[in-house]
């Protein structure tokens, strides 16, 4: 058998030249007359090393990265190479992880059913098919899995509501609208292990009695859309999806739908309106989507990570999953280390690591080499934390206690060149741009917020403006229908609270002049 090499097809790898590396590699192998196969795998999640080329050896896969086309020839010559990181599995960043949801990502060919099954694929679904819907729901509840889309609501409890709801038609809607800056775990799983999402959605369908699923994702994710669509076709052909799921009497099929550039469509009711072909305006709750969701039917809306974690829970058991983590945060969480950080990428681990461990021990500090000034956790609506709070552990409740949220588990690192007043202004500006317009505190409040922050920047009565800003943030928190308007105050107020100097610098120097 010939040599086997791997070059990822993940969008992050493509964005830094993986296709050109793969082409050069193929040419070079042909020129040398080497019989070889290049597998386009998902990403291992060590994005600072992308494009990461792996060569299979008797000892295991050897990693090289970041590889440029000009490095390819040297890489094939063998011997020591400056880009060589040794056995991939032994790289500390990977070795320290607990990969449950991402157990296959980066290892397999995303569209190979054979690879998928060789690596424990469909074992969860097979087990689910032997259980009653209530038993499946009970297992998911017992696993302690909480929604990974941001709110952390227990997935099993949501499923139970849909299971009990009456309706001739029920739906599984996968929220793949991943709009938070600093996040890409949904994208990585869709591009790197699409069958696990299909499996998770099929299990959800069987559990609640839904026969139709939708994956609603972003138009900014063209590669994820293409791979998901191909994977669905393959699964349908193999009898995983369709009138009889794996030969059972359960029917389940699904479709991918693309959003059109609106962040708010990640909010579940806005998403449902968008799926129905309407404006993505947020709906008032109740009714809950679980009771009256898509086209008025009982609907499970779950994040990609929530659904993609279900197969391993069904395969290994609720207890196995539940035993990872701390407090009420059970299982693992794929943390995304992004922005100005050396070892950027995806790090799946049990809940409970501190920000210090994540940013310094694992992340290696800033890429610029300058001191860390702040991190934003949980997307554009998440709070900014200063280094004095880096002892906070990654746990839903620990973050809430400190006026933050883990959200979709993205961490964006900023060095000491960042101006926190600017970041606060951006949070308000973003809210103004993305507001669905339904409620005044969000629609108007965010615009006023930008104006007030501009006045602070100009040094125009900063004390009074800060008071105004605080009031405004309170109004938005209390009076907004959804978390866009309700949480935009968090990045603003955390900036103000933890970095007051950035809000007064200009007026103070002005006064001194």
């Amino acid at each position, binding site marked *: 058998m010939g040599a086997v090499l791997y070059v990822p097809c993940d969008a992050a790898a493509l964005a830094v030249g993986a296709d050109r590396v793969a082409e050069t590699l193929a040419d070079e192998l042909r020129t040398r007359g080497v019989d070889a196969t290049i597998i386009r795998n998902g990403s291992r999640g060590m994005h600072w090393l992308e494009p990461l080329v792996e060569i299979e050896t008797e000892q295991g896969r050897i990693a090289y990265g970041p590889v440029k086309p000009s490095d390819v020839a040297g890489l094939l010559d063998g011997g020591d190479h400056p880009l060589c990181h040794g056995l991939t599995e032994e790289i500390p960043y990977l070795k320290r992880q607990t990969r449950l949801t991402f157990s296959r990502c980066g290892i397999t060919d995303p569209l190979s059913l054979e690879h998928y099954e060789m690596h424990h694929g469909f074992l969860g679904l097979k087990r689910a098919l032997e259980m009653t819907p209530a038993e499946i729901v009970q297992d998911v509840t017992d696993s302690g899995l909480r929604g990974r889309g941001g709110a952390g609501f227990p997935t099993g409890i949501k499923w139970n509501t849909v299971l009990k709801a009456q309706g001739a038609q029920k739906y599984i809607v996968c929220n793949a609208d991943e709009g938070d800056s600093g996040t890409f775990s949904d994208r990585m799983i869709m591009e790197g292990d699409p069958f696990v999402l299909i499996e998770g959605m099929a299990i959800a369908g069987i559990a609640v009695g839904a026969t139709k699923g939708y994956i609603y994702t972003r138009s900014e994710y063209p590669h994820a859309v293409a791979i998901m669509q191909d994977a669905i076709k393959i699964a349908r052909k193999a009898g995983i999806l369709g009138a009889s799921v794996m030969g059972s009497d359960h029917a389940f099929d699904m479709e991918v739908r693309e959003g059109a550039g609106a962040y708010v469509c990640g909010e579940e009711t806005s998403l449902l309106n968008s799926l129905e072909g309407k404006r993505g305006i947020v709906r008032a709750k109740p009714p809950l989507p679980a009771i009256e969701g898509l086209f008025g039917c009982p609907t499970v809306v779950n994040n990609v990570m929530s659904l993609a974690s279900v197969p391993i829970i069904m395969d290994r058991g609720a207890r196995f999953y539940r035993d990872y983590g701390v407090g009420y945060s059970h299982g693992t969480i794929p943390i*995304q280390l992004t922005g100005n950080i050396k070892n950027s990428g995806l790090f799946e681990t049990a809940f409970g690591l501190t920000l210090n461990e994540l940013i310094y021990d694992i992340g290696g500090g800033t890429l610029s080499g300058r001191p860390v000034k702040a991190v934003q956790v949980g997307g554009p609506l998440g709070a900014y934390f200063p280094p004095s709070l880096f002892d906070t552990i990654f746990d839903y409740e620990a973050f809430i206690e400190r006026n933050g949220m883990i959200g979709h588990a993205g961490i964006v690192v900023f060095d000491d060149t960042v101006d926190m007043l600017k970041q606060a202004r951006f949070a308000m500006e973003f809210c103004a741009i993305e507001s669905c317009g339904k409620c005044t505190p969000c629609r108007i409040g965010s615009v006023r917020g930008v104006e007030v922050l501009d006045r602070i920047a100009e040094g125009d009565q900063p004390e009074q403006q800060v008071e105004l800003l605080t009031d405004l943030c309170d109004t938005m928190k209390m009076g907004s229908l959804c978390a866009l308007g309700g949480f935009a105050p968090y990045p603003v107020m955390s900036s103000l609270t933890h970095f007051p100097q950035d809000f007064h610098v200009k007026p103070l120097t002005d006064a001194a002049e």
Partner: protein
Amino acid sequence: MALQTQSQDIEKETAAIIDVHEHQEGPLLPILHDVQGKFGYVPEDALLKIADRLNLSRAEVHGTMSFYPDFRTEPAGRHVLKVCRAEACQSMGGEKLADDIQRDLGIKWHETTPDGKVTLEPVYCLGLCSCAPAAMMDGNLHGRLDEDAVLKLVEEVK
């Protein structure tokens, strides 16, 4: 005459797109995406055709369409460059990069270069936050960008 033919063509193409999606639940967004994919924007004739076939008013279709930043009512330049403005890219100098590009191209957000080559759009996260700053030229993604790299992207397209 030419105009009329064009308008008939648009209607015909739009009808064909509607045929593909009509049976789907909530077909409006998939139709709008395909229409924009075909023409580069959503022409008024297409809008009217969609309204007619889906049994909606023109205002309803227009109202939905205008909610979403992706849909255009006018053609864009030959290429669309979307530069990420969100936080992870900001942390890696994305804001300065965006300013530099606007200056270099001589246009602001949502504008098109005078030669009709490139339309510049802001985007809020491309999921490439681990290789920031990032941008998208037409359907292609690019990370770890600097000013030179972006200008090269613009040069490389026709």
